[in-house]
Structures are given as structure tokens and as C-alpha cells.
């Protein structure tokens, strides 16, 4: 199980072993977002912590691969056992980079309270959208990153982004209701072809499966 820290509503992995594990085994990439102390004056290579997107955190917990931790000293969350005799176990875990004891609650009730936070994401991200994320992430063949660089929801890599270019710019839509729009097709089709990618429109069919359509700007004529 991989510990995922919640700070300021964001999800972080602070230790290198977990970073290795999620990357090697599950192709969860996240974003390294700390300053590298050896090269502090540049923005291309950054260091720990690894920031996870809400979808990645949600996926890891849903798959039973990670659990959420919370540094209680700073939290305003009331984590006292609500009922006497509640089976709240307080696990005190040795923090990895100091001898100090970090209080980390691993009990069921706290986890559920924390995952209420995740449920909020499900509502805000839209469970639909998360399903698309899942459909790409499951099987750990594709790496899924936030897609703002190319104006989509997700950027999907056919392998580790460290070695390979992104292949798809994914835009989730409602299969039945949403209009793709001719202008959008031209817009995104031209952009994605220009950067050697495919624009992918993803929708969910009635039977729950994800259907994807890719758009390429042919440039005939």
C-alpha cells in the first residue's frame, strides 16, 4: 500500500520508493513539483514531492493500491472517535526522513472520512470523466497526464512519458447529449495533427463501455 499525503486538498507522494512503485508497476506519472536542491535555478527538472492528480489518487485508492494519510497536527478535521468503543486504531508510524513520530491515522473510520474528500472529487471531476481516466489507466499500458498543455482534458502517452511522446489528446464528452461541434473538430484536429498527435473524443455507451473516436486533420486539397 502506498501512502498518499493530503495537503491543501492536493495529493502528494513524498518518498522515492513509492514514486518508483507507482511509476514502474502502474504507470502513474503525476507531476514532480518540488525544487531540486542541487539545481535550484531551473524549471525543467523538478524533484520530490510528486503531485498526483485527483484522478490518480482516486484510482490508486479505488484499486486498493494506496491509502490516504493526513498530518493531524495541522488539520482542522475532527478525528476523535465518535462512539465510545469505536474501533479506531491509532497507528503511529515512524516517519521516513526523521526520527520523529508522525501521527498517521490508518483506521477505517478516518479513511472513510478522508475518502469523503475523494468522493467530492468524483462529484466535481464528474464520475463520467473518471471512468474515462480508468479506461485508459487500467492495464497500465497508457500513461494519463493532465491535458492542459494541448488544450484537452487528458494527454495520453503510449508508454512512459520519460521516453515517449504523447499520442492522444483526449476530450471526454457525453455520448448522447454533447455536440462535438464542427469548429471544435477543425480546431482540435488541426492542432493535434500539427503536434503529431490524435484528438480523441471519448464517450460512454449505454452498456458502460467507453467508445473513442479519433480525429486527424487530413489536409487534402
Amino acid at each position, binding site marked *: 500500500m502506498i501512502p498518499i499525503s493530503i495537503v491543501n486538498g492536493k495529493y502528494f507522494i513524498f518518498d522515492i520508493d513509492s514514486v518508483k512503485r507507482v511509476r514502474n508497476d502502474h504507470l502513474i506519472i503525476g507531476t514532480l513539483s518540488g525544487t531540486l536542491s542541487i539545481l535550484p*535555478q531551473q524549471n525543467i527538472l523538478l524533484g520530490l514531492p510528486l503531485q498526483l492528480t485527483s484522478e490518480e489518487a482516486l484510482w490508486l485508492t479505488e484499486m486498493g493500491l494506496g491509502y490516504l494519510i493526513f498530518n493531524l497536527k495541522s488539520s482542522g478535521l475532527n478525528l476523535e472517535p465518535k462512539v465510545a468503543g469505536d474501533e479506531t486504531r491509532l497507528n503511529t508510524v515512524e516517519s521516513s526522513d526523521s526520527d520523529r513520530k508522525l501521527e498517521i491515522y490508518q483506521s477505517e473510520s478516518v479513511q472513510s472520512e478522508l475518502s469523503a474528500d475523494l468522493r467530492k472529487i468524483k462529484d466535481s471531476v464528474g464520475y463520467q470523466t473518471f471512468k474515462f481516466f480508468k479506461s485508459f489507466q487500467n492495464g497500465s499500458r497508457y500513461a494519463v497526464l493532465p491535458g492542459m498543455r494541448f488544450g484537452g482534458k487528458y494527454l495520453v502517452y503510449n508508454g512512459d512519458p520519460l*521516453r515517449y511522446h504523447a499520442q492522444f489528446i483526449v476530450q471526454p464528452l457525453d455520448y448522447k447529449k454533447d455536440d462535438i461541434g464542427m469548429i471544435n473538430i477543425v480546431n482540435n484536429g488541426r492542432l493535434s495533427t500539427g*503536434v503529431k498527435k490524435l484528438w480523441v473524443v471519448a464517450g460512454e455507451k449505454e452498456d458502460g463501455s467507453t467508445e473513442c473516436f479519433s480525429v486527424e486533420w487530413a489536409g487534402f486539397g
Partner: protein
Amino acid sequence: MEQEEDDLLNFDSSNQPDDDFGEVIQDWAVVAQKYQGKKRNTVPKRGVKDAEPLAQESTTYDERMLSEARNTMYEALSKTRRVPVPGNGSMDPLTIRYDRQTGEFYMTQPKGKFLETLGKTDRDGKTVWMFPEEAVFLVERGSCIAKYSDDDSHVLSLEELYSMAFANPGDYEKFMCYSHLKRCGYTIQRHAEYDEMIPLVTEVMVPVLSTKRFQLGHLANYLTRSLSWFRRLILPLVDRIGLFCFNGGLSRYPLLHPQHFEFSRYFRYSSMFSQLQTVFLRPSSHQEVQANQQTKYRICFNIWKPTPGFRKKSPPVPDFQVCVIDVNSTNFPSFEEVRSLLGRCDSHTVKKVERTSVATGPDDFKLKYGEKHILICIIDQGVMNFVRLNDSSFASEGLIWQDQWLQKKKFAPRKGGRKNRRKQ
């Protein structure tokens, strides 16, 4: 964002291949070399990527390259954070204290070059108070360590520090923007709007137009205003006189009369255009648009290019100002919000780089950069983009027309017209 800016904010955009804008290709070997002491102070370059794995099933080539790249990265990441080396043996001047009761960061009798731009020195000159983002940044880059104010034995880990420093929603995004710009070498301070209410605007608008235009504006205003009674009383009179005069070839209908163009003759476009030109006063964003006190769009940081002799107590007018937005919770600001933001910001006008041509005509630079400008930092779960908005006053450039533009040019018969069309 404009190119110049981009160069400043993005270390080596020149190295970027055209087809990969925005996508970062990382070469972690640089860090490894740095650790081995081979290279010093190099800005890392971007490495090379393949389009996709060679085959559906992983091949040995793919696996080897990938594991090499990964291992270099992991190795670089697993090195422990650099710890500052004190000059005289005592760590105290390099230690940031965190007060658990008040939640404040401070340093006592600190030393270091970073103090020129960071923190706020107390009146006694001994204590320097710091904002959370400043403290976290200093610890992250290895310039300082952090401890509790009442516990000297324990050095705070980055994880602990993070969870204490970022308490309010949106703090982490702002920190991301802060540390990104800081790593680029800018000097940054919090703007007053960061966590306080937006002050009501009391400034009186200064006329921006030149005196000549200002008078013209008045004239136009006056004319429009007087139009109603002008119509009722004087127009019939003027009509008769005008008709009389026109027949005699002396005068015309006044410009704003509906029949003006039926009876007036113009022989040049420029004289007609200059008659038609409506003179706007600048939208008085300074005066009218009062900031919505509950607005989500706040100017978070003042940014200066690195300037020698920067004094944090009395900083000069900032070069840029930035507003941080999280795409997942906030939309792009509406027109009203943008106007309000531009009205509130007070950064330097972008300085004019020497103009190459002396040609008269519109001032392209002014149109491009405007008087006021604001950066918007858009964050999508760890990915950051900057956008610059500025107000360009096209009206204040006056009439842009030259009669010789109409002079007939001799067109050469088009060769390869298809090619030309494609270029457009």
C-alpha cells in the same frame, strides 16, 4: 504569452523543437553528472524521446532504454536534500522557526543573500518574519532548515512543512506559481490582495489622451449632447442656410446631420475618414469598475526582474503582476473581471525596445503591449501556463490611413499562385 516573456519564464525555449511546444522532455542525466561533480552550473537541456515503443510487446531495446532513463531519474531524486553549510558552525542563522501557536514562520538573526528579497525584518532588526511560501521555498532549495520554535531537536521534514504552510484553499497553487518564478530568478513579493480584502478604488482617473484629442473628445461629446435641441430648434434654420450655401458652393451640412453625406463631396479618403472617426475616451476602468469584494480573481504576487539594489522595504513599481487560477475550480475571468483586474493592477508599462523603423504610423508596440498588463497563471493539477492580458487602446492611435495606400501598384502576373495561397 508573448515570445519575449516566454523566453524569460521558460529557460530554453530556443531548444524546443517546433512540433513539441509545451511538452517537456527531460534529461535527468544532467543531475547525475552534477552529483558526480562532472558538470557545474549548467542549465539542463531537454533529452530525446521516441514517438512510441517499437512494438506492441515490449522489446529489449525499449526496456533497456526505459529502465536506463528511469534509473537515472530515480537516482537523482533519491539523493537527500542538500543541507546548508553554516559559516561559523552554528545552524541558528539558517534555521526557520515555526510557531505552533500562531502558525507563523520567522528567523532570528538570519544570514544569507536571500534576505535581500525575502521576508520582512522586524523593527528591532533581529527577527525576520516570513510568509509560508517563502519558508517552504527556502527549505526546498536547501538554503535553510526548519524547526519548531519550542523544540530544537527536531528538523521538520518537507512533508510536515507542507502540511503546516498551506492552510487556505488555493495556497498550494500560489506556491507553485511562486516557486516557479523564483526558480526563474525573479524577485517576488505578495500583493496586498493575496489574503486581504480588495481595497476600494478611490483614485481619480487621469486623462490618458493627449490634450488635442482630449479637446476633440469634448467636442464630440458636446456635439452629441447638443444634438437633441440642435435638431429641434436650429436644424431647420441650418437646413435652409446650408441648402442655400451648398447651392452656392460655400458650406455643407454639419457632420452629424443625416443628410450630410448626401450633399457633401470628399475628394480624399483620409479627409472623409478623419471626419468619420469617432473619438473614444478610454474605458475608465480606473474609475468605474469597482472591484467585487468577493471576487475569486486576486492579484497574488508582484514580480520584478532581477534588479541590483532592490530594497524589500521600499520596492519599486513591479514589472509584472500575476493572478493565479486553478482550472478545475475557476473559469477564465469574464470581461468585467478582466477590466477590474486591469484597473487594479499598477505594474510598469512594458518598456519599449528600440524601434527599428522610423516610419510614421501606428505605434505597434503600444498596441501590442498597452498601458496596463496582467499575467494570469493557469494551473491544471501540476501543469502551469502563463497568459498575459493587456489593454490596448486602438482609439488613441487615431486615424490609421494613408492615401498613397490606394495608389495603383503594378502587379506582376502571379506565378505559382497556389503556393502563395497556401502560405496564408
